[in-house]
């Protein structure tokens, strides 16, 4: 009984979504399936050369091969795991951390707010490259380290937006009355602020996904991740780094397919957030 | 013809529909009224009844709404005008002082800029002429010039209202629409506003359209009144007349529940429709109307003239008269042959759904009249009509939905040898209405209505073991079991102690308010009368000398006797 009313209300909600929204959901499902079943659906191994280098798509290698003769499709399938993981983890974590710090600073105000805002100013003006190299030498290579470093650089944007929003929400009557009942900052955040902030945070999260996937490549080079992990960022980076990639027509598969994978993911996420936004805020 | 040029604004079956994604909301349905030059129109009604939508559609200010029907202003139909023609009329001929909130003004522009804007649009004045004009406007609404270059968020509620007024008067419009001008104002600033508006009206001669649910200001500023319910005009006419004698059950309910008019009366709103979906066709007030009947569901009632320039939209022609008595006389022959004229020529009208108090000193013939009306005593002369049918051999009291009477003395009202259930279901037994189970069920129903226990043991108790208050409640229950349309209560609480009396009266009023029957409440206690009744009749030695709405009779009685009576209210027996 419980099941069908859950599915009913999901179905009810879904009906209101635009076609692009539904199509994007389908794509996200597809990505997850590909990521999970990568070993089974990729005919060739992703890290052993299985064909002559740089053959155009055709026959068994329907996405062609890269300069070392690795099959591109299996690389993208394996890469999906890492890119999706990093993309989602980074955006979720930095949105959470950003909103917590942002709402604390917006809600508490006073010197805490000043302290956090100045910290944000410092974080924004610190140049990324040297800090990455520094962290790489201390942290060493692992997936979590990449996420940590990416989060360090991306939480400030969300914090700033959330702080502004919370400062407006703080004076709403329903918040002041909740406070009279002795509601704690955590309660207010959970019950009132987050619901209000959800659309803004969702858009931010989507934008971060694409940035994280592309940034992961450079981080892996500098020693934070596994440089042979074949994430989409890495494939794209090797392709763009190949000398003469634009003069020959290798880019037609070596650059196009990974870039397509990234932007298709991001575009469908963008449509999903737009529909969520519409549900949360009818007049948009 | 002269009426045409005199008529300033004519609205012909205007209807407004809002579209939210899929469903369509009907905000106003074919409202029709017209407004002449020297008249000021008031529009009252519950919030959400469509008054704002009606007014806003006059200047086509509604977003994602379809408006059809005609709005004739100076011979042109505003709705058919092009945007540019409409812009010539907006604010120049018709302007609006919006509901008082800071949202209505642009937060980033100074007040002066927002006022000058409209003047610049409609008149081309030089800059210092403009400055002079704005200063003049500030002066007439009683504001200091220092506030000119301030921003909306820096103003108090009262000041904001004056600014909105100044802005509305900027282009000295022909029609000034005021949307809930006094909502957030205290009494003092409300009076200032009313005085100011009156002065301005004399000076500029604009016609006012006032939307409000504050009857004081409606009373003070408007000559014509329109009452709206659920998007429809259900009553329109002269303001004074409507307030004194509302003809539509909704209007009466609306007026009765406003503390401005009935200053001492307990607060009782119109019963809510319990969220039941409104009937598609038929009167939308059906579920809340005390005198609803099948006919009300047949079709949508349209406005018809019921009294001189009074229109009502009700299948039953407005509030029914439940009982009419004409020229009732009654004499008693005492032993020493002296004739006591208990009643000599009493005329009384009881309308459906109202609480009427019959007040008078003891011995003024109140009880006798009650008994004659109820048919327990035969009057010597005069006729009594129940729903316009003369009452003979009390047909009116032995039917469902008829008339019932409850006597003063609770003890004699119930036979102490009968059990509670028998006493209460006696009327049904007599008229052999349906079967025993139904009657028992009805007993339980009415007993719960009067907050009496309904356990089996209590039902079979004998009445002698009950207290006076309980016996009186039984009497009421017995009267209510037949769902009467008129209940005559003859001094029913005088025997009760104040606390039981208070609870008892509150319950009676609650039941009356919910089921909608008319209550004739006979008492000598003016305080009680003022507390629960809508209208009052004053009796003195067998004649009704004065009658009318409570606030009229109690606040400025005409007859000396009544004035004397009213003084007793202020009397403080402790002689302080």
């Amino acid at each position, binding site marked *: 009984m419980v099941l069908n009313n859950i599915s009913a209300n999901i179905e009810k909600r879904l009906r209101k979504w635009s076609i692009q929204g539904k199509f994007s959901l389908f794509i996200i499902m597809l990505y997850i399936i590909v990521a999970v079943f990568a070993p089974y659906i990729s005919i060739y191994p992703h890290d052993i050369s299985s064909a002559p280098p740089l053959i155009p798509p055709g026959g068994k290698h329907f996405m062609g091969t890269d300069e070392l003769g690795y099959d591109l499709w299996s690389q993208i399938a394996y890469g999906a795991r890492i890119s999706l993981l990093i993309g989602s983890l980074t955006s979720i974590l930095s949105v959470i951390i950003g909103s917590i710090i942002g709402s604390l600073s917006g809600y508490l105000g006073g010197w805490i707010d000043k302290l956090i805002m100045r910290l944000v100013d410092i974080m924004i*003006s*610190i140049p990324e490259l040297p800090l990455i190299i520094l962290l790489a030498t201390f942290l060493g290579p692992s997936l979590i380290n990449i996420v940590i470093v990416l989060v360090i650089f991306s939480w400030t944007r969300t914090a700033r937006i959330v702080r502004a929003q919370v400062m407006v929400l703080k004076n709403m009557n329903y918040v002041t009355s909740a406070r009279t009942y002795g509601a704690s900052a955590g309660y207010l955040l959970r019950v009132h602020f987050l619901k209000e902030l959800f659309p803004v945070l969702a858009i931010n999260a989507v934008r971060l996904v694409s940035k994280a996937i592309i940034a992961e490549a450079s981080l892996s080079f500098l020693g934070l991740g596994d440089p042979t992990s074949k994430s989409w960022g890495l494939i794209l980076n090797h392709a763009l780094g190949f000398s003469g990639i*634009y003069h020959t027509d290798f880019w037609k598969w070596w650059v196009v397919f990974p870039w397509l994978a990234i*932007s298709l993911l991001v575009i469908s996420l963008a449509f999903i957030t737009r529909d969520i936004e519409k549900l949360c805020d009818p007049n948009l | 013809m002269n009426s045409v040029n005199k008529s300033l604004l004519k609205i012909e079956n205007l209807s407004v529909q809002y579209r939210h994604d899929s469903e369509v909301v009907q905000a106003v349905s074919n409202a029709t009224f017209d407004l002449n030059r020297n008249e000021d129109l008031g529009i009252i009604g519950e919030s959400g009844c469509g008054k704002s939508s009606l007014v806003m559609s006059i200047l086509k200010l509604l977003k994602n709404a379809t408006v059809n029907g005609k709005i004739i202003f100076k011979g042109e139909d505003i709705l058919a005008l092009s945007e540019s023609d409409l*812009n010539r*009329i907006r604010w120049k001929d018709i302007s609006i002082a919006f509901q008082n909130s800071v949202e*209505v003004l642009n937060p980033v522009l100074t007040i002066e800029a927002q006022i000058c804007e409209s003047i610049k649009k409609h008149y081309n004045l030089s800059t210092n002429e403009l400055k002079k004009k704005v200063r003049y406007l500030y002066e007439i609404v009683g504001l200091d010039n220092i506030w000119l270059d301030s*921003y909306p968020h820096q103003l108090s509620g009262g000041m904001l209202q004056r600014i909105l007024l100044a802005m509305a008067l900027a282009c000295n419009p022909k029609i000034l629409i005021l949307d809930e001008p006094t909502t957030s104002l205290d009494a003092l600033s409300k009076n200032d506003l009313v005085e100011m508006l009156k002065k301005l009206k004399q000076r500029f001669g604009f016609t006012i359209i006032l939307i409000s649910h504050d009857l004081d200001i409606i009373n003070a500023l408007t000559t014509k009144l329109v009452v709206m319910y659920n998007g429809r005009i259900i009553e329109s006419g002269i303001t004074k007349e409507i307030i004194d004698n509302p003809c539509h059950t909704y209007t009466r309910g609306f007026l009765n529940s406003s503390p401005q008019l009935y200053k001492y009366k307990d607060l009782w709103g119109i019963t809510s429709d319990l969220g039941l979906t409104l009937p598609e066709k038929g009167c939308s007030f059906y579920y809340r109307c005390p005198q609803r009947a099948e006919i009300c569901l047949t079709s949508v009632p349209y406005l018809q003239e019921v009294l001189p320039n009074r229109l009502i939209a009700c299948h039953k022609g407005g509030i029914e008269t439940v009982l009419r008595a004409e020229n009732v006389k009654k004499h008693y022959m005492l032993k020493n042959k002296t004739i006591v004229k208990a009643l000599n020529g009493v005329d009384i009208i009881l309308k459906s759904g109202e609480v009427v108090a019959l007040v008078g000193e003891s011995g003024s013939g109140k009880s006798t009249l009650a008994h004659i009306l109820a048919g327990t005593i035969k009057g010597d002369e005069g006729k009594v009509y129940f729903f316009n049918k003369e009452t003979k051999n009390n047909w009116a009291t032995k039917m469902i939905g008829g008339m019932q009477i409850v006597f003063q003395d609770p003890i004699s009202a119930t036979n102490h040898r009968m059990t509670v259930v028998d006493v209460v279901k006696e009327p049904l037994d007599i008229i052999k209405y349906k079967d025993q189970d139904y009657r028992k069920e009805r007993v339980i129903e009415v007993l719960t209505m009067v907050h009496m226990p309904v356990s089996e043991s209590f039902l079979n108790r004998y009445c002698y073991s009950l207290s006076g208050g309980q016996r009186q409640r039984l009497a009421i229950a017995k009267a209510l079991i037949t769902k009467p349309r008129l209940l005559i209560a003859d001094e029913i609480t005088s025997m009760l102690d104040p606390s039981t009396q208070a609870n008892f009266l509150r319950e009676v009023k609650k039941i009356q308010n919910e089921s909608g029957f008319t209550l004739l409440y006979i008492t000598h206690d003016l305080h009680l009368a003022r507390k629960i009744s809508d209208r009052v009749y004053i009796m003195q030695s067998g004649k009704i000398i004065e009658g009318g709405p409570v606030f009229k009779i109690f606040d400025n009685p005409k007859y000396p006797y009544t004035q004397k009576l009213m003084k007793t209210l202020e009397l403080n027996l402790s002689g302080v």
Partner: protein
Amino acid sequence: MIIVNRFLEYLLTFIIIISLNFFLPRALPGDPLIQLTADTYDGVLKMTEEQRIYFRDYYNLNLPMHEQYFHYLRNLLRLDLGKSIIYNMPVAEIILKKLHWTSFLVLSSIFITTIFGSILGAISAYFRNRPLDRVIYTKMIVLSEIPAFILGLIFLFVFAARLKLFPLYGAYSYYHDHLNTFQHFKDIIHHAVLPVISLSMARIGSIYFLARNSVVSVMGKKYITTATAKGLTKQRIIVKHALRNAMLPVVTRVFLSIGALIGGTILVENVFAYPGLGMLMQEAVSTRDYPLIQGIFLIVTLLTLSANLIADLVYKKLDPRFS
């Protein structure tokens, strides 16, 4: 009073950032002079041990850390940013000469993104949920996901190389004498078109979405109904009332995004060999050129902090509710 302690706050932050700028590069593994002579790529510098010591003292890299720090602060006060190790030129000179090209790109792309982003946002808000809005909306989503440098590469190959509409590289045609400054001006614009457009295309998405949401919410406000009731024309209402209020969030977002824009410009400058700060940052870090790293990051910090400050001031000026 508020302005003063606001200024103190920013000063304190600035000092912290300057110290970070000093310690961060030095914490990186590797030493500038050794790095340059590791014979790992073509045409690498030959430097004898004796020379390395001479230049180590010349750049006083031999002093203990705290002494170097005081040297750095003292020179900073005298606005002397020291000499770049790889360019062998005063850092201030390098940066100032290249900064105005980068700021030219950044400012013009800000100009374009704000103007077109807001106009497109207003249009699509005005025709909300009608076909035009849906078309613009989807285009914007797709467009704003393409990184600036990929767009740059596409433009370089299509418009510059194949169609020869625009020059292939540089900020102006080198060593080509023009008749007058107007000619020269035109030439600069001609060279700047592709970099600015690829930068703006990547940024316009975020401004568009913000403007669209903001205009939609403003159009719903009550003072817009008041304005219509006053009989004002549609255009006047949009310009005087709607846009003024809708622009508030857009303006602050624009100033706040200056920091991110500089990052984006680096890659685009590299694609078009535009003589801005461009790859200077990457080069300085990979060769551990401490003075150059400190100089560039100082300038970037100054730009970001002043952008924040301007954002605050402008917002206060525009929205009376906050001043």
